[in-house]
């Protein structure tokens, strides 16, 4: 990229999520203005009365602001880990769930709902089983102390289908009046869980994972050359792979455990990012985070405004993401692949 283009793209990638962030707070059945947002945030920080109605400050500070934050974090985390896995597995068709983290988290959540039906245990179980699934995939794909890309993907596919089967088993066993709808709704993804402030504990793994991926982003270029070349270029392939997998898993598991399974982001956002900034992962990772945040905020706004109730996020991301992706594919004539 030319220096001029770099500056413009960087500015867009910084400004766009900010616009989406404040935009989504304004929008809803209860309209609030931009100045209302700043005034109530000021009130929240300083405790000075802003002169706004209690309703307005409650909608902004307790409902929309946390939800916008969570949406941005989930979008950025899923997109960054999707981009990282695409580089690591040298395959533009993989996404954040390739090593089974989504299926594992889904199983964990379903298990918690069926066994305890506890709002705090569900994300904990989801996180734990999401990470467990990746660990299992990693060891399933390990051969003679190395982890070749192809066997890792194979391991991931196997673990994914095992956990999917277990999810089906739990659904089959679940109480059809209460538990089954809860499990099904969780699996379709939603940001409605921001109602409990414990949700923000999930920021810890997401932030650690994303920082890790940002820091490792150049190594992804080298890893995408394949094990043999990466080794001769002077990196410890096993260690670097392990780091990338760990960080991507922390980010994804952190996101999925509170948002449920939101598809598409880890697959398409990195591609859109590449159309914008090229293929150097030095740029792809931060660009994916920015665009992922925008995309989830946008989709979540639709989820809560289109109808009277809430449409699950996973449905909207697929309905918007699919056609948009086809449009981009036609427009760029697939030149980026």
């Amino acid at each position, binding site marked *: 990229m030319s220096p001029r283009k770099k500056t413009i793209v960087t500015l867009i990638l910084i400004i766009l999520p900010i616009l989406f962030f404040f935009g989504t707070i304004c929008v809803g059945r209860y309209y609030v203005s931009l100045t209302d947002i700043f005034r109530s945030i000021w009130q929240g920080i300083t405790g000075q009365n802003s002169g706004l109605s209690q309703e307005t400050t409650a909608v902004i500070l307790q409902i929309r602001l946390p939800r916008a934050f969570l949406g941005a974090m989930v979008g950025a985390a899923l997109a960054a880990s999707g981009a990282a896995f695409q580089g690591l597995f040298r395959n533009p068709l993989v996404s954040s769930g390739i090593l089974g983290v989504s299926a594992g988290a889904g199983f964990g959540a379903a298990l918690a709902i069926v066994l305890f039906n506890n709002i705090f245990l569900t994300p904990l179980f989801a996180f734990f089983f999401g990470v467990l699934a990746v660990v299992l995939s990693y060891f399933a794909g390990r051969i003679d102390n190395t982890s070749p890309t192809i066997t890792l993907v194979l391991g991931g596919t196997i673990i994914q289908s095992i956990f999917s089967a277990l999810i089906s088993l739990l659904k089959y066993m679940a109480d059809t009046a209460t538990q089954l709808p809860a499990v099904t709704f969780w699996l379709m993804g939603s940001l409605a869980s921001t109602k409990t402030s414990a949700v923000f504990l999930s920021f810890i793994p997401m932030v650690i994972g994303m920082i890790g991926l940002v820091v490792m982003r150049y190594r992804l270029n080298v890893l995408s050359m394949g094990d043999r070349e990466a080794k001769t270029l002077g990196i410890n392939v096993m260690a670097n792979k392990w780091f990338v997998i760990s960080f991507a898993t922390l980010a994804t598991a952190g996101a999925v455990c509170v948002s449920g399974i939101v598809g598409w982001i880890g697959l398409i956002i990195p591609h859109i990012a590449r159309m914008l900034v090229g293929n150097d992962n030095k740029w792809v990772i931060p660009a994916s985070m920015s665009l992922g945040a925008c995309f989830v905020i946008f989709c979540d706004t639709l989820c809560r405004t289109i109808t009277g109730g809430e449409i699950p996020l996973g449905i909207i991301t697929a309905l918007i993401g699919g056609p948009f992706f086809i449009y981009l594919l036609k427009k760029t004539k697939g030149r980026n*692949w």
Partner: protein
Amino acid sequence: MSLLSLENVSFGYRPQQMIFENISFDVRPGEIFCIIGPNGCGKTTLIDSILGINRPQSGRIVVSDTDLHQLKPREFAQNIAYVPQSHTKTFPYTVLDIVVMGRTYATKMFASPNTSERSRAMESLEQVGLKGFENRLYTELSGGELQLVLIARALAQEAQILIMDEPTAHLDFRHELMVMEIISWLVKEKGLTIIMATHFLNQAFYLENEGVKIRVALMNQGSFKAVGTPAEVLTKDNLKDVFKIMSSIGTTDEEGINQRFIVPLKNIR
């Protein structure tokens, strides 16, 4: 003094089935060590061992007085650069993105290559004659250009030893000669040492004619049948033994170039 030496190195994927056994040789600074042999004789596996991808069952590989397996990845890349036989393209990186990866070992653990590393990459791109290619997508290059880019990436490593596995495998005559010219320039002008596997026997004569110090090792069924100058090793009798072919060896004096050449004539049934 030897830059790289193998001492009785043996390797096999299964204990009872060795790919090569008791291979020993020294590579001296500023020479080309050319490994020639039929398909499946163990050339690539031997190269994998020198690259540290295979761990030999027995024997030792020593690089500048250090056991190869004691080298950290970074130190390895500082000493040995590699040009692969084939490269699978995944993402459309720019040519410069690819070449600058040769500077990975000089890049701090969690950083990206800086401007000085990028300008070194530009230099190596210029050295292989691809000035102006830096912003092209490497997925859109021809096979010959891609090979030159991969050579430029290896050059950017500024390592003393270059390992090339069939560097002209899919190239036309023109690009084959371009690669050969670069190889001879690297050895004569830059003083690099090259270990190269090839199926094009005439390349050994070409390089010898260019005034490059070259030794040929003729490999068959996991061991060296002969090691020496191209003329000593590439004889009709040796080719008959190893490749099971009848051949003719002649000398051309076209274009004022006095060079030997081999023409394969027929298989021995």
